[in-house]
């Protein structure tokens, strides 16, 4: 489950169709990043978006962990950033995270500060670069346009997704995209976005809850319609 901390402003991609990637993002090598995902531009843009949405506060999280002497959590966060940064082509950040992970593992408190500062600098460059270059906009409260929902079809998709969460999540992802087409801009757009956020981080239990809520909302909508 995502923690209960206030969820920061979400960024969303602009537009559909051709996946547009910036030519250059400070701190990131787009070429290396694309190679790491076999040239899958859509996935790459998704990863960049996820990074921006979930790693912005990493420096803060690390400091909090180290302050509470929770070196285990801090080390794991550093390890995770090392891996993700490498995947998106942020090599300098990945190296800084590796150095930090090593310093924490070695228990050298004096070195943490320096390495943490270097890390935060690198992270800052990447986050700022992404914000500036990727053409992302802060997501606003979704304007409710009350587009009609094909209840029967959406209910079918939701039911199928529940069954697939623990048997074929790849197929569930395809259905999520289909769900997006049905619910984006509808009265259930917010529910959909919550569901997507949980599924993006593979929080299966939360995704399941979210799908159940969606099913209930669909039933209510159906009853309202029939009544």
């Amino acid at each position, binding site marked *: 489950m995502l923690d209960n901390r206030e969820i920061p402003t979400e960024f969303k991609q602009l537009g559909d169709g051709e996946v547009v990637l910036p030519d250059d993002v400070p701190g990131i090598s787009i070429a290396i990043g694309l*190679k*790491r*995902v*076999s040239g*899958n531009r859509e*996935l790459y843009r*998704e*990863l960049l978006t*996820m*990074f921006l949405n979930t790693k912005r506060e990493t420096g803060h999280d690390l400091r909090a962990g180290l302050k509470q002497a929770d070196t285990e*959590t801090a080390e*794991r966060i550093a*390890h*995770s950033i*090392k*891996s*993700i940064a*490498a*995947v*998106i082509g942020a090599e300098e950040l990945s190296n800084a995270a590796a150095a930090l992970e090593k310093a924490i593992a070695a228990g050298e408190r004096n070195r943490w500060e320096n390495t943490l500062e270097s890390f935060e600098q690198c992270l800052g460059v990447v986050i700022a670069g992404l914000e500036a270059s990727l053409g992302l906009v802060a997501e606003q409260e979704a304007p409710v346009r009350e587009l009609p929902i094909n209840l029967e079809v959406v209910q079918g998709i939701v039911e199928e997704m529940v069954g697939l969460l*623990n*048997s*074929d*999540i*790849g*197929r569930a*992802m*395809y259905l999520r995209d289909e769900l997006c087409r049905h619910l984006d801009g509808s009265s259930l757009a917010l529910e959909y976005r919550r569901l997507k956020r949980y599924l*993006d*981080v*593979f*929080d*299966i239990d939360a995704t399941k809850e979210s799908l159940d809520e969606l099913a209930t909302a669909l039933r209510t909508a159906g009853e309202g319609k029939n009544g």
Partner: protein
Amino acid sequence: MGDGPDMQKVLIIDDTPENIHVLMSILRDEYAIVVATVGEKALQLVTNVPIPDIILLDINMPGMDGYEVCSRLKADEMTCHIPVIFITAMSAEEDERKGLELGAVDYIHKPFNPALVKMRIRNQLDLKQYRDNLEDLVEQRTMELTIQHKLLETLNANLEQRVAEEVEKNLEKDRFLIHQARFAAMGEMLNNIAHQWRQPLNNVGLLLQCAQLDYDDGRLDRSAFKQLVAKCMEMLQFMSQTIDDFQVFFKPMRERELFDPYSMLEKALSLVRSSFEKRGISINVNNYGTTVMLGFGNEFTQAILNILNNAGDVLTERGVAKPFIEIRCSHENNMNIIDIRDNGGGITLDIMDKIFDPYFTTKFMSQGTGIGLYMTKMIIEKNMGGKITARNTAEGAEFIIELPVHSDTD
């Protein structure tokens, strides 16, 4: 997009969603993918049927780490055979060795080349497929063998029953044959009695006819009549003796008694001599002295008779010129030895080792029961502890009977 329940299943265990997304992007069209972001959840998920065909496992995770997850998977009979590939940002050689030691089949470093990872997963799944096929094959063969084994067991059980049935049938056949043999022997005896009686009957007939003529001529006086009666009585006495002899012979003997093999041989000869002589078979006996011994005299006579009758039949059937039977009786090293040989041409070599078998006969078209020589062997070897052998001489067959004077059965 791949589809259907036949897709192989990949379990990805990683606490970093970005890594899962990258792996999913290259695998989801070919495999059914399930995901766990913590070890505990993965261990629950892994037993969901169908269980995964392969597991991609991160090492550094909160709570239970990848090493621990791998150890538990390998310790569980249900999951131990699933290939595990470690995919991790931990790059120390020691980490890799530890992973492989825990039973992982491969170790991939992050950041990885997706195309290569895809190939390495494919390779491991192919290997697993081969192994599963082999296991299936072994299982199938084992099942086939078990079925065959059960079949054999059933067959064996049936076989035992069938053997029992056959043995019973054979016993029945034995009883029938022995019965038949007894009838055959009786027939033989009656034949012999007829031979023995023909002469005295003729004599009695002639004497009575002569008496009639003498009486008609008035020549039958008291003295002549008395003489006639005496002669007839002698003949009748002889005939009566003949019957006594046969009765004694046929009387089953329960107790062992002292007997001289030579005397019993003579007794056998007295029963067949006239019928043999009629067929032109001469019988020559040389007695070098036998010793009185304990046993079943009548059975011994029966044994000798069987050999003599066989020899007589062969000599007659083969139309041997100047047929003869030569018998030597002797006593050597506490053994009574009876040697019976003929000039009938001998036993064909291909049946030599079968002549003492029960139901073996060369007289298919006649009255042969195939039990005569078998009975002889039984009497000599089983009942009297002796030994009987057969061999061919230059002229014919030779049967040698050796009887211990003090047998083990005494």
